[in-house]
């Protein structure tokens, strides 16, 4: 039971990072990134390759962050000027392109088999499973806390105000003398780096990566978390992850106590779908809404 709880907490923290990364892109800057799983995947693979070559996990983490930020920067420079709905389509397609290339090219990272036996960040012998989970939980909470504080400073500064202005009206923000292109590129790069860090943690935690872990459904899960929690609130992003993972794990436990005529996995999807519709119709700003500046 303790292991189950720890594992659940780890997944909540992991998805909180992803949801936060979408929050800075979509919730604050208005960038429709439907390729979140792509950067998650890049981080996981880069970190896996680095650690499989014998380097320390934390070097792998650093590489994962830098590499996904770099890819994010290159992609955003080339396409951030297109209109947001087209941007969503392009990122969705790119996600699939990268994934299918990785899946079919053996020489890059094992093709469909993926990478196995990725060393853990805590390669200690005689470690009980609970301690292993606890260490991982501390690691992921550390990463989450770092990004959380990072974003909190950013969004409460004049910089964050410009991001929010871009979300509301990009042209207007431009006529007020702000280089919106630069700001959008930076926000996208930050979001990509965060997703990369999450991927890096995943690869060492579960010990293997394959392209099937990074389907577009991952992206959509992150979107649902972000929208339900409140995209324009960094606490909301975490609440969203908690809420969604709670439903997922809750339905699994529920089947032990209540007999439901459908598979608990499907039941989870049904609940998620219904919730999504309810939120978009009646509470589009999410559980926690955007904080407003108050001046006396």
């Amino acid at each position, binding site marked *: 039971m303790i292991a189950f709880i720890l594992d659940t907490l780890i997944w909540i923290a992991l998805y909180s990072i992803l949801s936060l990364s979408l929050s800075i892109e979509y919730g604050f800057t208005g960038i429709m990134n439907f390729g979140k799983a792509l950067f998650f995947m890049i981080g996981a693979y880069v970190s896996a390759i680095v650690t499989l070559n014998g380097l320390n996990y934390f070097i792998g983490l650093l590489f994962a962050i830098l590499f996904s930020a770099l890819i994010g920067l290159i992609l955003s420079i080339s396409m951030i000027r297109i209109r947001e709905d087209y941007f969503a389509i392009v990122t969705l397609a790119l996600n699939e392109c990268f994934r299918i290339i990785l899946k079919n090219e053996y020489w890059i990272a094992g093709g469909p088999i993926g990478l196995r036996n990725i060393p853990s960040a805590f390669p200690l012998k005689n470690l009980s499973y609970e301690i292993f989970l606890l260490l991982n939980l501390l690691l992921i909470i550390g990463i989450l806390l770092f990004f959380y504080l990072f974003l909190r*400073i*950013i969004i409460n*500064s*004049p*910089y*964050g*105000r*410009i991001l*929010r*202005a871009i*979300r*509301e*009206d990009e*042209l*207007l*923000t*431009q*006529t*007020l*003398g*702000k*280089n*919106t292109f630069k700001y959008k590129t*930076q926000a996208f790069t930050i979001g990509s780096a965060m997703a990369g860090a999450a991927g890096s943690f995943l690869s060492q935690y579960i010990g293997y990566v394959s392209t099937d872990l990074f389907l577009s459904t991952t992206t959509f899960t992150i979107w649902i978390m972000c929208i339900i929690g409140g995209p*324009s609130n960094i606490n909301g992003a975490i609440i969203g992850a908690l809420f969604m993972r709670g439903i997922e794990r809750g339905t699994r436990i529920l089947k032990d106590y209540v007999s439901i005529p459908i598979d608990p996995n499907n039941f989870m999807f049904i609940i998620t779908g219904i919730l999504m519709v309810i939120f978009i119709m009646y509470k589009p700003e999410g559980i926690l809404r*955007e904080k*407003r*500046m*108050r*001046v006396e």
Partner: protein
Amino acid sequence: MKEILILKNVCKSFNGLEVVKNVSLKVKEKSITGLIGPNGSGKTTLFNLISGIYKIDNGKIFFNGERIDNLEPYKISNKGIIKSFQIPRLLKKLTILENMLIAAKNIKGEEILNVFNKNNWRKIEEENIKKALSILEFLELKELRNSLPTNISGGQLKLLEIGRALMCNPRILLLDEIIAGINPILAEKIFRKIIELRDNFNITFFIIEHRIDFLFDFAEYIFVMDKGKIIAEGSPKEIINNEKVMEAYIGEK
């Protein structure tokens, strides 16, 4: 006085429809210059061309002796050319005060690498807030500083639009029908403020306005546009007695 803004043979068409035809004009520094004309004569398009929102097809635009027609809107804005929008464009989920602050400059606080050291930008931010509050007070909007633009009236939105333009430290303000929908007493107050700003801060004003009574009282020079062309220019007195202008507005005798 020297000319701060010069347009030379500026042309613009949308899908073959010529909206601005060969327009040349000069705006003197520290002047209040008006631009009038019937609906659809291309006034707003001309402002959009100056501020870089649309790219011109042909011609040249000079600001302070420097060519600006090939620059991006934010660069033009940073040179000191600020435009207000005819239909107020506001940031709907930012408070009134934040809508003002977004127009201010805080060089340090706007750079990602500098935001982590609050001492870098807090002082300028506080000064900007002070300035914004004083402008809001003048526009009778101070009480609403913490509410959203979706909760205030149409006239107040127009006022906020003016307030935001004043936050930018402009050298020239392009004001597009600023007093439409504003009560006459406040409108007069706004024009008096415009003169005060011109005298104290050397700001040039280029104003589109349908309320000719106000404009002719305050402006020194008027351009008249019709069907994409400048059909007349001169002092308000000359314009009133110009037959071409009468024809454009009322039709031929």
